């Protein structure tokens, strides 16, 4: 890398559009991703808060805002089942594909990763811009689907065929939206991998990479290889809906008394609904790790920085991470134990599922042991990062009974499953996201946030999010299925209804608990105290760049001399060694 690569500081100023809207700067794009994703996270959260009313008080008109949703959805404020299903499907879709993934990969990955590897930008800046705007279009398509006749997709975020094939027009929009989102992720992942391989600063070997970069690296590979099958599946389902094919529709279906008109069925016996599930879960299981790995990366950064010591067993963690990524491709069918799977197949997938739990345990343990003999600073990001550990532990552990086929029979598709994966993603990844926001906020804005509001936000969120999800374990144990518009029609559902009501109230309070964050966020951007380049006294390269980093990131090309987390090095005057500092003899 030679000097002229950094000549751009003298560059003529770009126009407003090129600078903030159609920018090719990874930092601007990162912020664009993050802001859009935060919007979608909030939107998806709102959908859920509306659903929670129907769950808590089935068939009772939604007070105050009930009238706003139109006669087709909520006549007299009473939610109709079809609208409930739409909300459920879109909550899942938006949270996963429009919220969390764009946030942790598009947002944090885009902004932080190039800084941490000492690169001036991503390898393909224009491609980077394209992937954001493709994602944006996908998001718009998803949102508009609420306004088409029949409402948004209502076959669940898993869109199981044939239900999704005979569903209303919203499903077509969903598929189109997915094609956009998938394309965006593919372009992004190519960009990430190339950047990490090609643009690392001099001396930054793979085993000197911050764990966050490793997480992004593995995640990118998951996206790259797992998403295309879903794209294929989406294309096939589109054909089924639009071109009259029947990839997922078996012969002789009788829908509401009418034999489903499908021309080809006599000739070939039609399609296979399991095909969709295999293609879908082949993506969607790695997708789970796409949701959690970057979260682990963020948490590791924050913990290393706030324990003021190197993370324990860095290499072990990296190996565990890679192994996790690899294994995640051969566990998908544990979502399908009760689709009529035989003994052999289930044994295989149960085994791989048990195996994949080990590396997660390893990473968690490593992070825990890191706390040992640390000097823990309880900063706001650290609080979120610390909370991540037990929350993720709950989420991970409760995966065990679901991974054991016999135990899965009673628990499958009950609230137990909901509680399980929400513990992984909500107090897990979402807390990691908050940790990341608070941790890198000074770098991005050059200002500090208000720690007091931050702590309020943390404690309220921690309490309420647990009251939301913990009861669901008991509701699930009692055998209540998920995706029920009104569980009180069942004796076992009515018996645990109070727990559902409790969850709802906690959910709404959790919504209120985000107010301090929102206020903090916007006020600190404008009024926050300006800070130095390295307010957290971090060692990784992003803290070497100015805050906020200029176009091209680094004043001078950083050269790396050591591992990522050189804190409290014995027999040395300074408490921490940034990676680019020459060791004093």
């Amino acid at each position: 890398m030679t000097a002229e690569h950094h000549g751009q500081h003298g560059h003529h100023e770009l126009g407003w559009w090129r600078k903030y809207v159609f920018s090719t700067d990874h930092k601007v794009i990162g912020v664009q991703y993050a802001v859009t994703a935060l919007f979608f996270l909030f939107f998806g959260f709102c959908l859920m808060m509306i659903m929670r009313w129907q769950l808590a008080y089935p068939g009772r008109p939604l007070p105050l805002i009930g009238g706003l949703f139109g006669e087709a959805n909520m006549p007299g404020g009473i939610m109709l089942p079809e609208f409930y299903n739409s909300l459920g499907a879109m909550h899942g879709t938006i949270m996963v594909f429009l919220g969390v993934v764009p946030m942790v990969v598009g947002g944090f990955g885009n902004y932080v990763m190039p800084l941490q590897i000492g690169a001036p930008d991503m390898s393909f800046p224009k491609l980077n811009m394209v992937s954001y705007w493709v994602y944006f279009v996908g998001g718009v398509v998803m949102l508009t689907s609420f306004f088409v006749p029949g409402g948004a997709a209502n076959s669940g975020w898993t869109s199981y065929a044939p239900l999704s094939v005979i569903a209303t027009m919203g499903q077509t929009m969903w598929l189109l939206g997915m094609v956009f989102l998938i394309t965006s992720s593919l372009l992004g992942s190519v960009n990430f991998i190339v950047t990490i391989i090609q643009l690392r600063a001099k001396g930054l070997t793979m085993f000197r990479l911050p764990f966050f970069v490793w997480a992004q690296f593995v995640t990118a590979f998951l996206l790259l290889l797992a998403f295309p099958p879903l794209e294929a599946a989406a294309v096939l389902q589109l054909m089924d809906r639009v071109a009259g094919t029947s990839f997922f529709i078996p012969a002789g279906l009788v829908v509401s008394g009418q034999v489903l008109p499908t021309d080809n069925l006599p000739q070939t016996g039609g399609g296979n609904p399991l095909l969709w599930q295999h293609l879908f879960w082949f993506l969607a299981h790695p997708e789970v790790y796409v949701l959690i790995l970057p979260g682990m990366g963020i948490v590791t950064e924050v913990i290393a920085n706030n324990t003021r010591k190197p993370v324990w067993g860095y290499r072990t963690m990296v190996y565990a991470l890679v192994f996790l990524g690899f294994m995640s491709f051969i566990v998908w069918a544990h979502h399908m134990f009760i689709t009529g799977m035989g003994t052999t197949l289930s044994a295989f997938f149960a085994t791989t599922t048990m195996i994949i739990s080990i590396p997660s345990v390893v990473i968690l343990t490593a992070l825990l042991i890191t706390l040992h003999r640390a000097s823990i600073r309880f900063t706001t990001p650290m609080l979120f990062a610390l909370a991540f550990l037990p929350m993720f532990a709950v989420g991970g552990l409760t995966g065990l009974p679901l991974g054991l086929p016999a135990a899965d029979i009673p628990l499958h598709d009950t609230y137990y499953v909901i509680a399980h994966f929400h513990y992984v993603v909500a107090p897990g990844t979402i807390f990691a996201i908050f940790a990341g926001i608070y941790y890198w906020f000074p770098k991005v804005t050059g200002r500090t946030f208000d720690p007091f509001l931050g702590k309020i936000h943390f404690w309220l969120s921690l309490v309420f999010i647990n009251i939301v999800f913990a009861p669901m374990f008991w509701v699930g144990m009692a055998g209540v299925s998920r995706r029920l518009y009104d569980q009180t029609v069942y004796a076992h559902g009515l018996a645990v209804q109070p727990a559902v009501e409790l969850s709802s109230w906690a959910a709404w309070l959790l919504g209120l608990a985000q107010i301090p964050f929102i206020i903090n966020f916007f006020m600190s951007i404008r009024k926050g105290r300006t800070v130095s380049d390295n307010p957290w006294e971090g060692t990784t390269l992003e803290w070497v760049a100015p805050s906020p980093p200029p176009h091209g990131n680094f004043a001078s090309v950083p050269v790396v001399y050591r591992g990522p987390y050189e804190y409290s090095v014995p027999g040395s005057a300074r408490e921490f060694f940034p990676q680019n500092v020459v060791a004093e003899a």
Partner: protein
Amino acid sequence: MSAETLPYTVHPHPITGVYSGKLGTWLFLASEVMLFGALFSSYVLLRVSAAHWPGHDETHLSVPIGTFNTLVLIVSSVTMVMAWASLKMNEFAKARWYLAATVVLALVFLLVKLFFEYMPKWEHGHRPGFSSFFALYYTLTGLHALHIIGGIIVITYFLLPGSALWKKDPEYYTNRIECTGLYWHFVDLVWIFLFPVLYLM
């Protein structure tokens, strides 16, 4: 910042030995493999689970036309390589001719597919909804055709407006043609798989 000012866009990375564009293309192709892989496995699953699979006498796919198209694509691959080679030998004019030839061949492929394969089948009522076989036939070949169209667009770009880059930075231009070539070979390769699977098996 514009791509040119980034390291390793033109010159290969000392350790990995490739320039970023090439690596990116390879990764993109990896995902493409997964895409078509998924579709091929769908083909296998549907065919295995099907009560009856239409034989060659029922599908009426014309092997001669298929073979012709296969040859067309193979030749277009060759011209694509020649284009890159002549750029390497600094013969820009020649390269443009080869690129043009590639585009023409690609168009020939599409036209043959449209007028001698799709349209007659469509008239015969052999539409996607007719049987799982034709559903797969239209989906697979259609997706492949989309890839061909994409290739045509890219090559045409480098042939006309994009060629300005040659004067600014010949090596960079050559690299881009090489990447396009990689993609183009992949598209041909997909067809090499499609042809026997759909026409012969």
